[in-house]
């Protein structure tokens, strides 16, 4: 006698799980313009690659021994491949209890997705939709409970220094999941359908008496531009999946491996003529930093991270002769390219990403300095600067800086690391100093200027004197700073990134500074 009857029951249970929260809830979910958890997994993964686990977990109703109804747990999880590379995915299912609540457990419980990702050393992806706890569960349990979520989020913390972690926010995500959305190396939200907040509008109303919409409270205008809690904005869900696949394509599956080199698609010796005149001679004019990046990295290989936040610094991942690299560039078209608290946060996260996943760092420097002014003081620019400087000096990845324009002050100092594999080239357009000549003259020669019959003329005279000795060639004579033809920059980067591979290979393993999100 075969086990066909049991196999039939297994299939029936799997079918019931696939119905998620039921036809009515699924229809309502679709009507909101959102994909279901299972559609999302399919949208992200290579076709047919989803290998589900914990697929039989849920709450069942029986008539005697007969299963009459079944509601699955509010997540869909399993292993997938992305461009043939394995990863673990967890998708919140909003159609089951609004995506809230967990799977229970106890003795004999199977490992969670996060524990599997940790042990199998695989990238971990969250497709989030739904809240964390709900007071409704108090009634189910007949008691309240202590907020001991760290019993399981501790695994997600451990993941940060072991494997790449990415989150897509695909709905209103509140409570623990809102915080967990930031517990990773990259996150993305979708226009109009995504919000995060520890407590939503009703909670805000109760606490503060404020009437506010979900979108005003925790939508993309807040989180991708002002708070920086979410890195990237996606046009739609498919775009969010593409961005996650793209982000992961630059990274190794775990800290114990090297990032994968992609097929070579661009000439390593490409020397774009436009580089020779990219930097304007007039100091009032600004260069296009995104164009600069395109001239230097492999064609179409730049993936920008957090483009709308801390906009004076462009950060992202790219490829140089097929090798993944991290890259940052001052964007002088926003706040003059200066470093504010937001820009500092971006840079620290990028440095940490490099040291965790063994990426060399390229800095395209046109740094006027830390942002000055009362706003900066209120934001705590000095402590932010101290943290940035610490991150720079404590980093270990191979680092190359190309000074294309200005490099001034302590923020300029943060494009330099005096130890480890570090290289710096300057373009002929480079200009530097511990401070700007114009502002610096007013401060350092104040008495002379004030005592002069024509103070403005005196200041101009001193400035002219100093500008005459500001040529980068004078520095090169004395310090050995190498200056290059801008058109040779890509060639230098290719050489450096090749050389970096040997050093990076010695740094494989758990990062010596744990990744902090």
């Amino acid at each position, binding site marked *: 006698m075969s086990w066909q009857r049991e196999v039939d029951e297994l299939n029936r249970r799997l079918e019931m799980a696939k119905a998620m929260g039921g036809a009515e809830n699924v229809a309502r979910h679709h009507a909101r313009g959102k994909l279901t958890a299972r559609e999302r997994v399919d949208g992200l993964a290579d076709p047919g690659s989803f290998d589900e686990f914990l697929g039989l977990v849920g709450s069942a109703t029986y008539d005697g021994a007969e299963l009459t109804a079944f509601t699955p747990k509010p997540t869909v999880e399993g292993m997938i491949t992305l461009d043939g590379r394995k990863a673990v995915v967890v998708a919140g299912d909003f159609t089951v209890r609004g995506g809230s609540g967990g799977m229970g457990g106890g003795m004999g419980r199977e490992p969670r997705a996060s524990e599997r990702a940790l042990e199998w050393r695989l990238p971990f992806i969250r497709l989030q939709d739904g809240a964390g706890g709900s007071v409704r569960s108090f009634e189910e349990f007949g008691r309240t409970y202590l907020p001991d979520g760290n019993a399981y989020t501790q695994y997600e913390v451990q993941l940060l220094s072991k494997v790449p972690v990415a989150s897509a926010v695909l709905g209103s995500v509140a409570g623990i999941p809102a915080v967990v959305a930031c517990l990773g190396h990259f996150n993305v939200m979708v226009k109009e359908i995504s919000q995060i907040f520890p407590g939503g509008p009703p909670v805000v109303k109760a606490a503060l008496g404020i009437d506010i919409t979900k979108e005003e409270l925790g939508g993309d205008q807040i989180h991708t531009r002002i708070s920086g809690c979410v890195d990237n904005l996606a046009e739609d869900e498919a775009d969010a999946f593409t961005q996650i696949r793209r982000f992961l394509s630059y990274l190794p599956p775990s800290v114990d491996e090297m990032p994968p080199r992609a097929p070579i698609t661009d000439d390593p010796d490409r020397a774009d003529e436009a580089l020779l005149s990219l930097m304007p001679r007039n100091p*009032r004019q600004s260069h296009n930093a995104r164009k600069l990046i395109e001239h230097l990295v492999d064609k179409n290989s730049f993936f920008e991270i957090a483009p709308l936040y801390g906009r004076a610094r462009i950060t992202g991942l790219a490829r140089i002769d097929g090798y993944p690299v991290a890259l940052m560039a001052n964007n002088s078209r926003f706040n003059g390219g200066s470093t504010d608290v937001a820009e500092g946060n971006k840079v620290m996260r990028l440095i940490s990403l490099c040291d965790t996943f063994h990426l060399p760092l390229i800095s395209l420097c046109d740094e006027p300095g830390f942002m000055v002014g009362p706003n900066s003081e209120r934001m705590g620019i000095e402590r932010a600067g101290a943290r940035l400087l610490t991150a720079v000096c404590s980093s270990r990845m191979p680092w190359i800086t190309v000074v294309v324009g200005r490099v001034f002050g302590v923020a300029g100092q943060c494009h330099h690391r005096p130890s480890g594999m570090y290289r710096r080239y300057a373009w002929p357009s480079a200009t530097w100093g511990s401070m700007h000549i114009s502002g610096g003259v007013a401060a350092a020669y104040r008495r002379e200027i004030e005592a002069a019959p024509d103070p403005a003329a005196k200041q101009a005279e001193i400035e002219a004197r100093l500008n005459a000795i500001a040529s980068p060639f004078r520095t090169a004579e004395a310090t050995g700073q190498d200056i290059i033809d801008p058109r040779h920059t890509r060639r230098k980067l290719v050489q450096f990134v090749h050389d970096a591979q040997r050093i990076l290979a010695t740094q494989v393993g758990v990062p010596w500074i744990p990744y902090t999100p």
Partner: protein
Amino acid sequence: MTDLRVLSEIDARVWKIEVAPGDSVTADMTLLILEAMKTEIPVEAPRAGRVKEIMVKAEDPVSEGQVLLILEV
């Protein structure tokens, strides 16, 4: 033919307008120049097209997200 709104990415002041309504422009051509923090910030055409309407004039203060001009593409 569709209208493409060219927005200001920053808070700034309009310094110079480089095109006139009816002009044909190519991708990356400078349409107008903003000024912020004593720096000129060119606004370039995202695509080739024809200038349909210019919504600002020199010296105007503009804020992030404000429509600067409309291109027919």
